[in-house]
């Protein structure tokens, strides 16, 4: 069930109506049923996968907690044990807990890995077999369950946090199931943390007109971005990227900028809808973006784009990896061999590259995503290395902080990121690099002015809508810097306020790229 489908709108209206009519104590149960109904529409078999993840995570979380309690009780009962005996006992329990955690991680990440990466692995094996003129292995037909990357990561963060004793596990399997399957965030995140989401997810919610209205506005804003901008510009993006032999040179540059706009409008629009729906239900979901295209460096960008994924990798991959035994060993030996300066950096670099490799492959099971991830990591590391050079530059030229220089930084970052995303557009490493090079070797600026842009599937009126859309997006982001835009609008006179709402509603209704003549476009991040 697409967020942009009539079925979903109907489903949502029905749910919200029921949600505020039924006794409040049943609200979370209704959400759980709704989430499973929503998921059912993506296929029966998918329900099986998510159920397996829920049950296994629940069981292990209770087991982990049981072991912790057992340890505490045992130590309380046996106060007279020596320190050494206590240590031995603790190690024994720790080892058991670690075993259960590992089992849960391997099992669930294993499901994800098998479904998502088997064919990728087979294609690489087949490439090698072909080299040796051996028979290829047949590919397997595995359908990727909707949102599996998101709910697997969300449940794994839960089990790791329980292991780390950050919080007590949820004893009600229904509530735990709701945390994993909460439908608004099932398709494309954000990857919520249990201690954040559970604060409002299971609460009893009375109807609050302001919260509801703000949520509704956010949903509308999300639909505007998705349906008016992203689903309109996708035609041109696909025309360019699906025909690399026809559209190279300046078209690649246009395509990468168009894709940057499409991805932004699509993903942030989807998250706006998610957060807005949750808000209409009285539930708080954490922000996933903070005006990412205003970032002045790639490092900053990744702090502001898909925040929940970035922090997930930081908390559950980067930090544990950096302090893991093998990494500490590498650190020790590299220091001994290359000295403190280089030796200190080597494990950090290694951890960073591993994280970006993982980030890349999380986005998709193909080499283009892996290369994209690694390039992000490399650029971040290079810019870190250049920090002293930048400092000297700023000391000499005194441009830091000026509007012109900040604008330059923002544009540079957007162009750099867009260039990296060429790998995402063409989904092939070789073609991507060839197209990137063609931007510089076949730069025909005339294309911009000779009407060729009208051959990309968009007409003049589409371009006008897109230009106005971009102006609105930028204006909105600028306004947002000084506080909530919805609060600002809410403080205006009713005529103005309601005019804005009504205009937004009819903009989506009239200008939205939906219905016959338009393909129903899935959200981009749903593929991941």
């Amino acid at each position, binding site marked *: 069930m697409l967020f942009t489908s*009539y079925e979903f709108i109907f489903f949502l209206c029905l749910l919200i109506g029921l949600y505020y009519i039924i006794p409040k104590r049943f609200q979370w149960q209704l959400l759980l049923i709704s989430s499973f109904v929503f998921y059912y529409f993506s296929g029966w078999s998918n329900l099986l996968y998510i159920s397996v993840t829920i049950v296994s995570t629940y069981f292990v979380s209770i087991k982990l907690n049981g072991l912790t309690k057992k340890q505490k009780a045992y130590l309380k009962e046996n106060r007279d044990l020596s320190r050494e005996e206590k240590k031995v006992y603790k190690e024994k329990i720790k080892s058991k807990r670690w075993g259960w955690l590992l089992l849960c991680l391997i099992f669930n990440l294993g499901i994800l890995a098998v479904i998502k990466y088997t064919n990728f692995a087979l294609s690489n094996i087949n490439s090698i077999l072909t080299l040796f003129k051996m028979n290829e292995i047949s590919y397997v037909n595995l359908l990727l369950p909707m949102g599996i990357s998101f709910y697997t990561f969300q449940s794994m963060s839960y089990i790791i946090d329980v292991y780390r004793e950050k919080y007590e596990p949820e004893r009600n399997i229904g509530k735990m199931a709701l945390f994993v399957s909460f439908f608004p965030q099932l398709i494309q995140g954000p990857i919520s943390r249990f201690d954040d989401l559970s604060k409002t997810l299971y609460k009893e919610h009375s109807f609050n007109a302001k919260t509801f209205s703000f949520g509704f506005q956010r949903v509308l804003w999300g639909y505007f971005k998705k349906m008016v901008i992203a689903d309109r510009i996708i035609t041109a993006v696909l025309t360019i990227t699906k025909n690399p032999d026809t559209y190279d040179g300046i078209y690649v540059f246009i395509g990468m900028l168009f894709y940057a706009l499409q991805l932004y409008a699509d993903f942030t629009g989807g998250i706006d809808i998610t957060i807005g729906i949750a808000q209409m239900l009285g539930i708080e979901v954490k922000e996933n973006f903070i005006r990412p295209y205003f970032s002045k460096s790639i490092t900053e960008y990744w702090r502001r784009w898909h925040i929940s994924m970035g922090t997930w990798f930081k908390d559950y991959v980067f930090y544990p990896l950096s302090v893991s035994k093998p990494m500490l060993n590498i650190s020790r030996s590299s220091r001994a061999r290359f000295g403190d300066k280089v030796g200190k950096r080597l494990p950090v670099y290694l951890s960073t590259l591993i994280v970006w490799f993982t980030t890349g492959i999380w986005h998709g099971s193909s080499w283009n995503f892996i290369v994209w991830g690694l390039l992000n990591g490399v650029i971040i590391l290079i810019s870190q290395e250049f920090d002293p050079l930048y400092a000297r530059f700023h000391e000499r030229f005194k441009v830091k902080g000026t509007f012109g220089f900040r604008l330059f930084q923002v544009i540079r970052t957007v162009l750099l990121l867009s260039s990296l995303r060429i790998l995402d557009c063409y989904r092939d490493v070789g073609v991507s690099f060839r197209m990137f090079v063609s931007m510089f070797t076949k730069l025909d600026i005339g294309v911009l002015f000779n009407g060729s842009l009208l051959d990309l599937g968009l*007409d003049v*009126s*589409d371009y006008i809508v897109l230009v106005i859309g971009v102006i609105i997006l930028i204006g909105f982001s600028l306004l947002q810097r000084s506080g909530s835009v919805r609060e600002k609008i809410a403080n205006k006179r*009713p005529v103005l306020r*309601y005019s804005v709402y*009504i205009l937004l*509603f*009819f903009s989506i*209704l*009239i*200008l*939205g*790229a*939906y*219905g*016959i*003549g*338009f393909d129903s476009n899935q959200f981009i991040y749903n593929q991941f």
Partner: protein
Amino acid sequence: MKNKKIISILIIFLIIAGLYVLLQSLLMPKYMTKIVEGALISEYYHEKNKDHDVIFIGDCEVYENFSPITLWEEYGITSYIRGSAQQLIWHSYYLLEDTLKYEKPDVVVFSVLSMMYDEPQNEAYNRMSIDGMPLSLTKLRSAKAAMMPEEDLITYVFPLLRYHSRWNELSEEDFKYWFKKDQIAHNGYLMRVDAKPVDTFPKPRALADYKFGDICYEYLDKMTQLCKDNDIELVLLKAPSLYPHWYDEWDEQMVDYAAKNDLLYINLLDYLDEMGLDFNTDTYDAGLHLNLAGAEKTSVFFGKYLKDNFNLIDKRNDPELKALWDDKSAYYYNMEQEQYQELEEYGYLLKFNLKRTEEK
């Protein structure tokens, strides 16, 4: 304070509803200067006197081939044609069901050519057949039966969801006929006076299976039952169009069905000479459809058939009806005159030659 809030919300909803209605009527196709057959269905609902002796139901084989004005002038029969382009049998059934909400005719004449289509064919024709109906369960049932896989039922409730993307192709026509449309047809008859003689038709190809589809029979059964329930005589009709080819095997099935259900079936292709049809002068598109001259000849013949078979009273002496039909006749002859003038001036009819009109 609470009342004030409720009133404010109501006002906002009214504004939204008002804007919605305005935008929807602006963006929906008007069918006034091109593809005019799209306007046929809705015209019926603006008809002041919805009391007809005969209702024709079907596709272009009825709305191009029969003239209610001739039936009135020759026999005093009041009739209306409820037809639209490629109107399939499920459209026809639900359109009849809808018509019966307004009147109970003595005779319903159903054009059987659409029995050849067992599944939905085209979204554009669906819209032309259904959009003109007022919102009702009948309309929704019709849409549900007719929809192509890519269509959504909700767009028949809120047509703006279908036509929203026309915002960038709005023309002068859309603004001119935003609130009020012209009358296009004459009790459902779409007049054309131009002529194009029959040339040659492709040889009818042999079919793998000549049997009409089960769904078509299902709807024909429903139509038969609906007429029986309402004490209406149902006549099955094959109009005198030469193409698409009407196979003997199809004809036999209709003969059998009529006999089995105690209905009348008439294939007018068997009476071309009696009607005096000349396919050099009486068709505007080489035999697919009749022009005004052809439609009037057919109507004279078919009116007599109706008179002979059913007890239809000549109503020409009813002063009220006479006044009403006099107005209709005046409009009819006026349009005939205008079309001849257009033919003389341009060599073709503006509304029916979209490409040439646009080039001009």
